[in-house]
């Protein structure tokens, strides 16, 4: 199925070794992965499995030490210079001295878009993440969930086809997280973006993804890739269906096979 679609991310024998004071640490080893256009791929695994590192390699925030990776056929650096992706961090990382709309405008100012185009994009993305009416607020005036939505709006305003999300909802409570997961799926359906999503929540990964990449630490590697059989339309209560639970069980098996449950 993925072979037909053009590859957005193509990694081959990708490896990354950090030199630390305690000797080299293999954050990624031999990662082979192709992500097609329009996919929603989740990366799941315990801390140290390299899932965030892999995302940072795609974003050109880390340089791989072996193997190769291309983004839309370009090197990560070229892709970054072409502004091929939007990145959402673990924390909202909004600038506290800017209002929400000025925060969303930040990447647009940096590209140098005309003011009118900026205003139009801000309006559009603020509506996409349901934050219309909060444009003039400062980050501290918003709840954690709203701040993270603002940071998603900021990444969307970029209008890149690829969205990289690094545990974006990790710091939020479960109720807010459910709500944002649902909104994220709607947004994905509405925009047809390719999304790479790092998480350590099994239900979140299964609920969101078309494909789940299970990873293991020491060295960081891919142990299993699970295609989701769930339909694209996913109400929240799909999580009680046997089909959902079967996929979740496979993810758990994958984690166990990678010794992720051992000390």
């Amino acid at each position: 199925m993925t072979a037909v679609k053009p590859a957005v991310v193509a990694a081959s024998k990708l490896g990354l070794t950090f030199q630390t004071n305690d000797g080299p640490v293999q954050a990624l080893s031999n990662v082979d992965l192709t992500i097609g256009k329009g996919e929603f791929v989740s990366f799941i695994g315990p801390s140290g499995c390299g899932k965030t590192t892999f995302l940072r390699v795609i974003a050109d925030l880390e340089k791989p030490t072996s193997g190769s990776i291309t983004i839309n056929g370009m090197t990560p650096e070229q892709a970054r210079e072409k502004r091929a992706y939007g990145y959402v961090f673990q924390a909202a990382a909004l600038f506290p001295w800017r209002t929400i709309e000025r925060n969303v405008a930040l990447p647009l100012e940096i590209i140098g878009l005309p003011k009118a185009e900026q205003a139009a994009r801000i309006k559009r993305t603020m509506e996409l993440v349901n934050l219309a009416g909060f444009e003039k607020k400062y980050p501290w005036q918003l709840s954690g969930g709203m701040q993270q939505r603002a940071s998603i709006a900021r990444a969307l305003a970029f209008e890149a086809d690829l969205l990289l999300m690094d545990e974006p909802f990790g710091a939020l409570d479960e109720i807010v997280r459910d709500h944002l997961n649902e909104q994220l799926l709607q947004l994905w359906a509405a925009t047809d973006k390719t999304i790479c999503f790092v998480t350590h929540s099994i239900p979140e990964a299964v609920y969101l993804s078309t494909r789940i990449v299970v990873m293991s630490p020491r060295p960081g590697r891919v142990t299993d890739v699970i295609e989701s059989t769930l339909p694209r339309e996913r109400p929240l209560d799909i999580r009680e269906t046997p089909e959902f639970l079967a996929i979740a069980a496979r993810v758990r098996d994958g984690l166990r096979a990678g010794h992720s449950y051992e000390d």
Partner: protein
Amino acid sequence: MDTLRSKIIPVTTILLIIVAIWYVGAVAMNAPFQRDMDSRNNATPGTMEFIGKTLAQPKPTLPAPHQVAQNFFENTFTRKITSNRSLVYHAWVTLSSTLLGFAFGTVLGIVIAVGIVHVTTLDRSLMPWIIASQTIPILAIAPMVIVVLAAVGITGLIPKALISTYLSFFPVAVGMVKGLRSPELMHLDLMHTYNASRSQTFWKLRVPASVPFLFASMKVAVAASLVGAIVGELPTGAVAGIGAKLLAGAYYSQTIDIWSALVAGSVVAALLVALVGLAGRLVDRAMGGRPA
């Protein structure tokens, strides 16, 4: 109510304790001279009369608080402000060179900090010299600055202001280096993903992030500037300014004058620090700061 309990009462209590200690000290320190005078005049005052006399000497070793207060009041409010007996006049002379030196120092400090943050060579080479510059006693440098500049024809406000600059650029430079380096890694990564240029990262991230650091260091710098201006007035032949007033008081043993000039200096310092603090709060509010 809260400010009364949390600020006014504790501060007033300490003030009263200081004044009480000051009175005791004044009586103790002025007593030997008073005893000497009394024995020359064959006077035998009672205890209360003796204490009263120690607190009313024209040139006491340690003037009593009310003597300083009276002198300060007279020389601040009852003299024409153009008179060279007016403390307002002297405070203004000192204030003008303080402000000029503070402005120079702030600009210089910011320029140095920007250089240090952006050029690795400057970081390695300049920082030790900046720190070393502050270990040299200002009292030793000040007369040389005044003399050297006078030799090349620069006199008046500028040499004094330069001494203020010398003292005030340091806290600003150190504070701004810290401030410009204060953005979190995540914010820097964010700018990197946008492929932002160095100048965009500087203006849109480093500068706004450094503003609180700037005002904190400016508070220290403005107080240091005032010290610099006063020290700069001492070797100039003491024509005008709070420093001159201190020196003249010392020449003529006008201890009360010295103390009221000191009070004037403290008032100016407090006003300057409060003004910088207020400006900092206003800027913080304008930048969306959470009201405390």
